[in-house]
């Protein structure tokens, strides 16, 4: 497979995952902010911005301005519209490589988002819009699984998606468990833990394991270390390692060993992690997870995508 194609598949998946993550967070927030005092609501909106690595919009920290900036603002490269546009651009780059059905779905999603206006959404039912984005992405993933050969290209899609998920979830946990000094330092209440779980579509799955009694360390254990729940970081790490191994098998390049080693280390940290130990310095732990994800990402690029040509010619001989 062309290196450029691998690059596009990888980023297509990352951008769609990012759009879905943002849609989910906004949906939960708009809903739960309804029962909050104005100061509590503003604090939560600021936390949401932190969780998405976004700056407060120039128009002020109002629900409308933040929703606009995170949903439709094309100058914000992390907005839902910008992410879906970027995903579609990447899909266009590899249009002959993905299935027609995949292309049609990402194109439909793009047309839907670009043809919806902020005011139309805001005055209607924002929930329906965010749900349509989430479902659009889920449908794309389903179509991908059903219509694309599960070959090397498919694994590049998986690794992009789960790297994005692991890093986004780590950031989300960080802003909830490790509030900044000062203004945000008081304990989160019950409803906020529920909102966190819902932000990961994890509330129902959590209750099945721990019942509806919400304890922060259980929430942390579930979202970090649960092996079966698809939005936990451990689940993502398992998938990342499996993808790294599958990609490595289809390549003759020697450099692949490093990718597999880094992915294996990330997985081991989560497979053998203990929540009580992690809780003693949650922030450091989460940052090391993010760092390991970035290392896997960099190493994939070095091994498969932007390797130096003369090294490939001399070191291993060309095919």
């Amino acid at each position, binding site marked *: *497979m*062309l290196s450029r194609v691998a690059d596009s598949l990888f980023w297509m998946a990352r951008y769609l995952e990012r759009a879905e993550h943002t849609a989910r967070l906004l949906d939960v927030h708009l809903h739960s902010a309804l029962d909050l005092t104005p100061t509590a609501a503003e604090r939560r909106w600021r936390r949401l911005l932190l969780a998405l690595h976004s700056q407060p919009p120039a128009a002020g920290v109002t629900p409308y301005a933040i929703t606009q900036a995170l949903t439709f603002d094309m100058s914000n490269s992390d907005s839902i519209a910008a992410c879906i546009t970027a995903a579609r651009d990447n899909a266009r780059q590899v249009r002959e490589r993905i299935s027609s059905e995949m292309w049609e779905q990402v194109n439909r999603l793009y047309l839907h988002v670009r043809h919806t206006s902020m005011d139309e959404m805001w005055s209607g039912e924002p929930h329906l819009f965010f749900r349509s984005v989430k479902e659009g992405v889920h449908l794309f993933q389903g179509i991908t699984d059903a219509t694309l050969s599960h070959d090397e290209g498919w694994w590049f899609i998986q690794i992009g998606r789960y790297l994005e998920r692991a890093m986004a979830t780590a950031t989300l946990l960080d802003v909830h468990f490790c509030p900044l000094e000062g203004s945000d330092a008081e304990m989160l209440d019950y409803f906020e833990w529920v909102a966190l779980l819902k932000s990961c579509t994890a509330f129902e799955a959590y209750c099945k394991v721990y019942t509806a009694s919400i304890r922060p360390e259980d929430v942390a254990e579930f979202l970090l270390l649960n092996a079966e729940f698809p939005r936990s970081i451990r689940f993502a790490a398992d998938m990342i390692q499996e993808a790294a191994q599958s990609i490595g098998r289809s390549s003759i*390049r020697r450099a692949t060993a490093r990718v597999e080693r880094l992915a294996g280390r990330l997985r081991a940290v989560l497979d053998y992690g203990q929540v009580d130990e992690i809780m003693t310095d949650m922030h450091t732990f989460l940052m090391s997870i993010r760092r390991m994800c970035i290392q896997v990402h960099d190493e994939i690029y070095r091994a498969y995508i932007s390797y130096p040509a003369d090294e490939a010619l001399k070191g291993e001989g060309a095919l």
Partner: protein
Amino acid sequence: MFASYDIDIAWDEMFTADGQPRPHYLPLYERLTNLSAEELYRRQQAADAAFLYQGITFAVYGHGDGTEKIFPYDLIPRIIPAAEWSVIERGLTQRITALNMFLRDVYHEGRILADNVVPRELVYSCAYYRREMRGVRVPRDVYIAIVGTDLVRDADGRFLVLEDNLRVPSGVSYMLVNRQVMKRTFPMLFEGYNVRPIEHYGQALLETLRALDPMQRPDPTIVLLTPGIYNSAYFEHTFLARQMGVQLVEGRDLLVHDNRVYMRTTAGLQRVDVIYRRLDDDFLDPLAFRPDSALGVAGLFNAYRAGNVGLANAIGTGIADDKAIYAYVPRIIRYYLGEDPILPNVETYLACNEADRRYILDNLDKLVIKAVGESGGYGMLVGPHSTREQREEFRRRILAAPRNYIAQPTIMLSRAACFVDGRVEPRHVDLRPYILYGEKIVIVPGGLTRVALRRGSLVVNSSQGGGSKDTWVLND
């Protein structure tokens, strides 16, 4: 449905001069008259939605915002009976054979120039002449592997050649997609017609490219080189790559080492044998041609010259579709084949000939003036539809650079029935069949019928508001 259908001096594809449907259109005509306008409109909507959702779009240059438009599609097919097609097929085969011999000759011995059949200075002054190709042997001596010739029909119903597109002709994907959409939205129209299939075009194209492998290996690696997603024909590039099952590459995916071409894959570098390039000569190799090209591959020309990679089309084929050389094609056919042309040219005046130039300048309001190196309907003056200022502008341009202009009488392109604004009305059309030349010449029975959708307009180019329709070639 046909209430506002008028028949004028242009040849009508569907009706005879006294308003009777031609025999090969009769079943279609009857089926259409039994349909309501709403029914047609509904199917038109369904077809448009299919194009939009599949993203079958092209980018229009000069609009800056990078908007993608769907290529307007007309529901009513254009029908070509077997006897007419066989003339077209023989005529194109003859013409392409001769043009290919001309290219080989010009870049090697130059017999036709020595014999003064084509003026030497006309060839050497052509912007597409590539001195670097002198004496370069190309695989199988095939220069023009992929051609899309523009044909028009005059008021007597004769097919004439309007343009030979010998560089990187586009539009074949629309021929294929129009048929797909037609079958999906209007299957019943096919009943009773014996329409020849065109779906094997991808396979035929692949065979043609295989034939150009300089090493003649059993399983050569073939790639399609695209300028990228901002090119107006990007959809077509992805479509053809998929139809053939070959990699779609950009210049940055390829590299040349030791005069061999490689592509960068996740499993290392892989050797490339044949390149179907959808990139103009100028941009192919920054070392040999335009140094500012970021789309090409440094060193590609040397690899080609060394015989390590096949290119379709060869470099420098643009001389044979220069609009001034075009005027000589009938002579070129006689010179190499000793035959009369089966498909005539449109009468052409060259501004670089003094007598012709005087005639052109005296008749600017009647002629179509074309810049020799332009295509896609750019750089063109349609005399009868022009303003005085436009004519004066062209007079200045012609006098400043006579070699750059030719003129042709305004051809009343034939008209075909189209579904416009809830009615069936006639619109002017042309026809672009696609010719493949590898081991032998293959023409898929069909082509792209382009439609000038504005009433009375004679310009069918997609960049100028043209559309297209499915084209049926019938079996006997």
